[in-house]
């Protein structure tokens, strides 16, 4: 297990190198010179001399590989350049905003799992009866609702009308409830659907029929033979939802005045603040890839087949 985890972790390094090179190249090839953006954000008129000077300062006059190499050697030391707009080190800014985003996304992930698993089980247990219909209706609503709009509806209902929750801001647990609900509605709906269908698939599996033949009670069959097998798809799906959750967090943050990295990144994108865009994307990919690694390790731990296969290979 440890061996497997370490090997997967080691494989991430070349992947991140390739991704960072791709990000770097796309940014450099992007229409609209970085030197222009640099001058615009520094309020310097883009005369030919100023452009040449900016290109020299930014190292844009050098070959792509040379540029990448100097970026990489600085990035390894934690220097991702300075923002064109704020003139502050990019990494410092992003690390300042990132924890709030990760906190929100993390709580949204936990909420997704805590709510979707019982819903999925309930729905499968009462297949085609009213609890199932209700859960399916809710899930259908969930995959169709714009998360940013849901944020406003929640503010209007619970913040303004009922006055149960603070409409925006940060600080207490109560501040998190509405953003988390807005972010996770979509992923918990997808999860509940998925769990339902994988539970129902397992109901017809041969090992379940065998368990019933041996005279196990319905509850025992459900817990020991159906649920345990249905957990795998949920773990896999959670890996896929992470991207959705992170993306949702970036959008929903701004509605609730949550001090996360979303607003910072959006303004950088609008400004063509390339160092920020580059570092932000890379950080997001790192977070996503690490989460997926955890998911993979978890599923290896849960799936004896995979575990044995890995052990045999190693």
């Amino acid at each position, binding site marked *: 297990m440890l061996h497997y985890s370490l090997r997967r972790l080691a494989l991430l390094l070349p992947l991140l190198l390739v991704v960072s090179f791709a990000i770097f190249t796309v940014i450099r090839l992007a*229409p609209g010179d970085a030197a222009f953006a640099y001058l615009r954000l520094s309020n310097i008129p883009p005369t030919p001399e100023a452009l040449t000077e900016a290109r020299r300062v930014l190292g844009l006059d050098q070959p792509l590989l040379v540029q990448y190499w100097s970026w990489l050697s600085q990035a390894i030391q934690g220097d991702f350049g300075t923002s064109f707009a704020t003139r502050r080190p990019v990494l410092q800014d992003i690390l300042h905003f990132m924890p709030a985003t990760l906190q929100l996304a993390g709580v949204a992930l936990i909420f997704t799992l805590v709510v979707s698993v019982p819903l999925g089980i309930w729905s499968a247990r009462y*297949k085609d009866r009213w609890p199932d219909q209700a859960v399916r209706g809710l899930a259908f609503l969930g995959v169709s609702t*714009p998360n*940013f*709009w849901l944020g*406003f*509806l929640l503010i209007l209902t619970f913040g303004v009308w009922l006055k149960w929750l603070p409409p925006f801001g940060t600080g207490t647990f109560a501040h998190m409830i509405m953003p988390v609900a807005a972010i996770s509605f979509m992923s918990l709906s997808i999860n509940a*659907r998925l769990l339902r269908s994988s539970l129902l698939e397992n109901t017809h599996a041969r090992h379940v029929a065998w368990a019933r033949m041996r005279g196990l009670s319905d509850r025992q069959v459900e817990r020991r033979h159906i649920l345990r097998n249905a957990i795998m798809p949920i773990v896999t799906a959670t890996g896929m939802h992470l991207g959705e959750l992170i993306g949702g967090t970036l*959008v929903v943050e701004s509605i609730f005045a949550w001090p996360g990295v979303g607003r910072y990144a959006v303004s950088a994108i609008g400004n063509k603040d390339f160092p920020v865009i580059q570092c932000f*994307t890379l950080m997001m990919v790192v977070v996503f890839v690490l989460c997926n690694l955890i998911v993979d390790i978890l599923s290896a731990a849960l799936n004896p087949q995979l575990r044995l296969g890995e052990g045999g290979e190693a």
Partner: protein
Amino acid sequence: MTDKTLSSPIRDHGHHGSTWRRLPLVLALTVVVVLLSAALFAPWIAPQDPNLVSLADRLKGPSAAHWLGTDHLGRDILSRLIYGTRMSLGSVILCIALILAIAIPLGGAAGFIGGRLDQGLMRLCDGMMTFPTVVLALFLIGALGTGLVNVIIAIAISHFPFYARMVRSVVMNLRSKDYVLAARVCGAGRTRLFIDHFLPSIAAQMVVLASLDVGHMMLHVSGLSFLGLGVETPTAEWGVMISDARQFVFSQPMLIVLPGLCLLFSVMAANILGDALRDRLDPNNQTGHHH
């Protein structure tokens, strides 16, 4: 779904009969027809110019002149909602067209030719899938610049790997089939083979995949416009309308509720149609989502 119902009546025990089950589909089709006609005939249906500013009429409630009231610049909300359908539907259609234009040639070539090209393309897809789609789209917009066209390009690029992979796997599956071999023996060239024998299967898979994605893409486009990265602000688009109305969330909640409802209903209709199409067309999904 109908023929399945006929062949296995037992499965339908306890249901309210087929009319009730088909009701969502009928509603969804109605919504789609309404949206399409609103988009096509917006200039004739809309009671007013969606961009006509009239500060004297700002933030008015519903009246005979403005059925749904006016926004903070006195623009007619109903007209803006009607014109908004053009943005949402148009951008999603363009997105899908672009995705297919990239995915079918690339995935087809990978499946047909195989070897280095195939490996290269699959590595590219793997690489792109390490990004969360929203982050990839945000990054591409950062590189390309803001605006609706770039949003469409960004969404298309961030979604195409899934489609290219599907095309590739369909082609690979079919390549070894007897009837394809027979066509080859008869002297059919690659182009002929592709159009006659591969394209129909690919098309079915693409329709399923795309129709399940349409709603999601709509949400993407308006989400990005809401953030101020997509459609520019004077243009009538649902995400932009919600974003414009933010400062009046407490005094004029309807300005936010209405465009959101339009978006919600469109996405719902798209999802219902997507599920129905999948049930009909996807050979791998015989059971649909009711087991």
